[in-house]
């Protein structure tokens, strides 16, 4: 018997019924998505601060072609530094433009990352606001729907009561009509009896 019952259960049909029930009852999802709240998590804020640190480093870091020259050798230290200076001066026409280009490149990378970061933040903010708005709208909609449902229920109750009264009145009306007819019949009988008596007296 149990097996027979089980065979009758159609999961797909039940799922369709559930979908229809959701539509009919107007059930609304009021649970925000993970993506809408994840940016508020501690993990997100750590991630942000790490990214900010990296952008700050990239923006502030500049390669200096004329940086201070040093030597680890205690003897000939001055000679070594002097030689390095000569080499640097000799290669300035190649090295300096390259360093400038690298600096320019690094700055642009930093700016691009900052733009991307800004874009992501704006998008996330927009998404968050839109989710909040959706949630509020959902709540507002739900509230309005509840109010409408209450009014409909009240009106339905009133209509029902009026209909009951009308039914009662209709019954009374029928009763009244019956009585009126009965009175008319009785009146006719009375008239007839009076006429008969008058005839008898004459």
């Amino acid at each position: 018997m149990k097996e027979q019952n089980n065979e009758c259960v159609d999961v797909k049909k039940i799922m369709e019924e559930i979908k229809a029930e959701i539509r009919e009852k107007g059930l609304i999802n009021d649970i925000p998505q993970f993506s809408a709240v994840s940016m508020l998590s501690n993990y997100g804020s750590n991630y942000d601060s790490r990214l900010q640190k990296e952008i700050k480093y990239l923006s502030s870091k500049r390669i200096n072609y004329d940086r201070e020259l040093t030597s680890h050798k205690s003897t000939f230290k001055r000679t070594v530094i002097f030689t390095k200076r000569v080499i640097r001066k000799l290669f300035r026409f190649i090295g300096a433009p390259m360093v400038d280009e690298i600096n320019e490149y690094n700055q642009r990378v930093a700016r691009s990352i900052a733009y991307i970061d800004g874009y992501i933040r704006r998008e996330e903010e927009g998404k968050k606001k839109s989710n909040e708005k959706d949630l509020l709208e959902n709540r507002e909609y739900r509230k309005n729907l509840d109010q409408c449902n209450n009014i409909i229920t009240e009106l339905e109750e009133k209509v029902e009561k009026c209909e009951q009264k009308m039914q009662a009145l209709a019954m009374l009306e029928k009763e009244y009509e019956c009585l009126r007819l009965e009175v008319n019949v009785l009146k006719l009988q009375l008239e007839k009896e009076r006429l008969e008596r008058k005839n008898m007296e004459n």
Partner: protein
Amino acid sequence: MRIIQIVSGVNFGDAIGNHVVEIKKRLQSWNYATEIISVHLDKRLPSDTIKPLSWIKNITEQDIILYHMASKTPLNRQILELPGKKIMMYHNITPPSFFAEFDYQRVLAHREALQDLTDMKTGIDCCIAMSEFNRKDLILAGYDSDKIKVMPAYFIPFEDYAQQADIATIEKYADEWTNILFVGRFAPNKKHEDIIRAFAYYSKHINKKSRLIFVGSAAIPEYRKSMELYAQQLGVNNVIFTGHISFSEIIAYYKVADIFLCMSEHEGFCVPLAEAMYFHVPIIAYASCAIPDTLGNAGVLLDTKDPVFTAMCIDKVLTKPGVRESIIEKQNERLKDFEQETVAKWLLEYFQSLTF
């Protein structure tokens, strides 16, 4: 001819570990000479079960290598240099995009693993996919579809599930409350957030006396942490994060579960589904990746992640007369396909059919 299984790691009790060890046992019972070579050795396994990587030098041209592909490892390239015929058993690689928000190192590792998979196709003679979904993955990576066979299931040691469940856990959770269970490590592809979201609706609007139980270790700690925060932000209190627990406790959680809810978006097979079937827990799962293949005609497959719909499905399965029983009946039928003897028969026929 020997059949040498090569795998990056064999862990005691995990799905691939159990599978690899059982394949060795079966091959030995069919009189094949066989060995397992692994980089990482689990001390809980008998010492003679696994050979270290240095054993690789003993492989000859007459051997068949059964390589288990599941992640980024230097072995992916190394095995192509080895002599002998090569069969790849593909367990699936999770797409890197799932990890982007939580673990960039994993993004790189999975990207490289997928690159390895594509690059390896010229050196692999044939493949065994662990599901139809995995077979499609291999075809997308450029493998010849004629050389791919789909194994019916993993070797799942169901006999181990008959052992004693943890009594304390059963006493704690076997009450009038509804227990919704998911078993799986915390990784973004498993989509724990969608389970929390559906549960939030269910516990708020349908059944306040319900709890959600997550069994699984924190593979990505940031993800697990963000799930705890998400549950807090939604004001859902009855969510239990068990963390890594003993096998007897896992059994206990299956025994007290009323529903197994899975919202995962990437699975190569999903062994916990078979476990839920074994413990007669009705399954509700989102239809994606290998999940429809694994469930077959059983369980309830959702075509949407809408929390209202999911919550109402949970309610119907638990309250509508006959639904739960019908689902379990179909699950029991499906479970027969995962019996070790069925899988073993397929494997023997596969090796017998090899022409090299």
